[in-house]
């Protein structure tokens, strides 16, 4: 394997971060970047910053005569496609407990799990030069160069399969005004157990026309061959990309998204991190569920139907057997939930206010009143747990 000679001085100049964005902008002066291909490597491991960096490059860099490959890796996160339903795609409850955030991309496609063992590649080009197959040939070519004879193939859905069977890469893309980006994942040494536990629905009974993911068996490249680490693959990918897309010998340029030269990235990352985008942009959906209620040895089932629009409860119907609870309180709880975010902390706050209002007068005194209040509390807990 022959390493391309790298133009160190140019690389050092390019790595002057404030100079880099200016040179890439339309009419940018200063740096003379030879060739039409450029490889960037993000120094951030924050998924929201990196998604914001993608958008920044797409919106601000002149991509009509230049192509760019951005390499990035994140701390654990689940990333859903633009039109997907995070409640359906991943276990938000478990993610909250594990400290794994959910992010929503601007590109289409399905849900993926990111962690430092997963390498993300974004291929930027003009709309005219948008060619996913060509980009994926760079990836398969790099893997074959590292490990001759490895069986990796791109499918017509632009997944990459190992040994014809295991998905090691998924693809998504966005077409904008004059430019496009195609990004894909590459499973090198990701935590597959965590991936499997997180990529399942938060609650049952979701009906939605959101775009659905197609589950597939996955494998890590490092399990296939220990030399296929994220670092070795990234290096080879850069060489392969520069060979395919042409370059004057520029090396991989590190970029720090928090650098103030990338104007607006912090604000964009904050917007991407916000609930309104991650959860609120979910297409309208309904939830049909049964809540298992218990009171000592006695048990009952409540049926719930919720309509959720823009992440907020638009309609709620709660039906409980009248022997278990009189009809008034469940109906009042349902009414209070209208307009609340479909999220456990907001539902819990609503439930708390509801129980305070119901306590005492409405439920009556003595043992009967206490039992009713306990059952109402249980109903509230189960409602909150649904989300």
């Amino acid at each position: 394997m022959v390493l391309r000679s790298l133009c160190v001085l140019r690389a050092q100049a390019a790595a002057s971060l404030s100079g880099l964005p200016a040179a890439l902008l339309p009419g940018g002066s200063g740096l003379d970047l030879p060739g039409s291909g450029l490889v960037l490597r993000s120094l951030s491991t924050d998924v929201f910053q990196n998604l914001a960096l993608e958008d920044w490059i797409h919106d601000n860099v002149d991509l009509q005569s230049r192509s760019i490959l951005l390499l990035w890796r994140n701390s654990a996160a689940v990333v859903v496609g633009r039109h997907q339903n995070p409640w359906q795609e991943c276990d938000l409850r478990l993610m909250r407990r594990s400290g794994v955030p959910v992010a929503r991309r601007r590109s289409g496609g399905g849900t993926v799990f990111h962690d430092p063992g997963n390498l993300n590649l974004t291929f930027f080009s003009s709309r005219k030069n948008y060619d996913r197959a060509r980009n994926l040939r760079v990836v398969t070519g790099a893997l074959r160069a590292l490990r001759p004879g490895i069986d990796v193939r791109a499918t017509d859905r632009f997944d990459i399969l190992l040994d014809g069977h295991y998905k090691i890469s998924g693809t998504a893309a966005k077409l904008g005004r004059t430019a496009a980006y195609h990004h894909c994942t590459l499973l090198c040494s990701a935590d597959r157990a965590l991936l499997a536990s997180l990529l399942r629905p938060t609650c049952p009974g979701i009906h939605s026309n959101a775009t659905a993911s197609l589950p597939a068996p996955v494998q890590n490249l490092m399990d296939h061959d220990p030399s296929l680490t994220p670092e070795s693959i990234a290096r080879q990918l850069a060489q392969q990309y520069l060979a395919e897309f042409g370059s004057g010998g520029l090396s991989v340029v590190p970029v720090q998204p928090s650098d103030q030269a990338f104007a607006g990235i912090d604000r964009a990352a904050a917007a991407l991190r916000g609930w309104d985008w991650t959860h609120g942009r979910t297409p309208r959906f309904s939830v049909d569920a049964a809540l298992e209620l218990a009171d000592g040895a006695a048990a009952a089932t409540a049926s719930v139907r919720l309509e959720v629009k823009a992440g907020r409860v638009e309609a709620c119907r709660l039906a409980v057997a009248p022997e278990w609870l009189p009809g008034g309180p469940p109906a009042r709880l349902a009414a209070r939930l209208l307009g609340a975010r479909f999220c456990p902390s907001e539902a819990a706050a609503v439930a708390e206010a509801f129980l305070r209002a119901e306590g005492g007068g409405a439920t009556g005194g003595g043992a009967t009143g206490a039992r009713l209040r306990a059952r109402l509390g249980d109903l509230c807990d189960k409602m909150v747990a649904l989300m």
Partner: protein
Amino acid sequence: MAARGVLRCLSSNFLSVLPSIAPSVQHSPRLLTSISSFQRALATSSRLSAALKFTDKHEWIRVEESGVGTVGISNFAQEALGDVVYCGLPEVGAKLAQQDEFGALESVKAASELYSPLTGEVVEINTLLADKPGLVNKSCYTDGWLVKMSIDDPAELEALMDEKAYERYIRSIED
């Protein structure tokens, strides 16, 4: 007022492109709806239909008699996009400036952003698309419309391409 201006523009287009049509057509815009070459581009409703104006991003807008503009994507765009699997549209009431990104169409190819042809407010969205996103491919000029919007500044229409200019534009980018 904008609708009348656009209709006049349409009739003169037809005269220059299809010289074999009888001269009486310039006094009867209604006859224009049956002309086969432009059938794709026109609504097939019985009321007077306004001409389509196009952006360079392949959206079209048709100004209805009410002054409201119906917005969709062109046949060129829907073919390039491939099968649409999801239409991400704005909420009614969303205020859009000309060229603002107002949503995205997701196809197997990519999520392709939609840009507002004019400045105005969304007054209606095509709810059929929630269950039938494929209408955008099958019927991009009629049943596959995306949103309807009020028009704050009819003068913005002048900057958009008429059908002839748009066809020329497509030919130029295909080369």
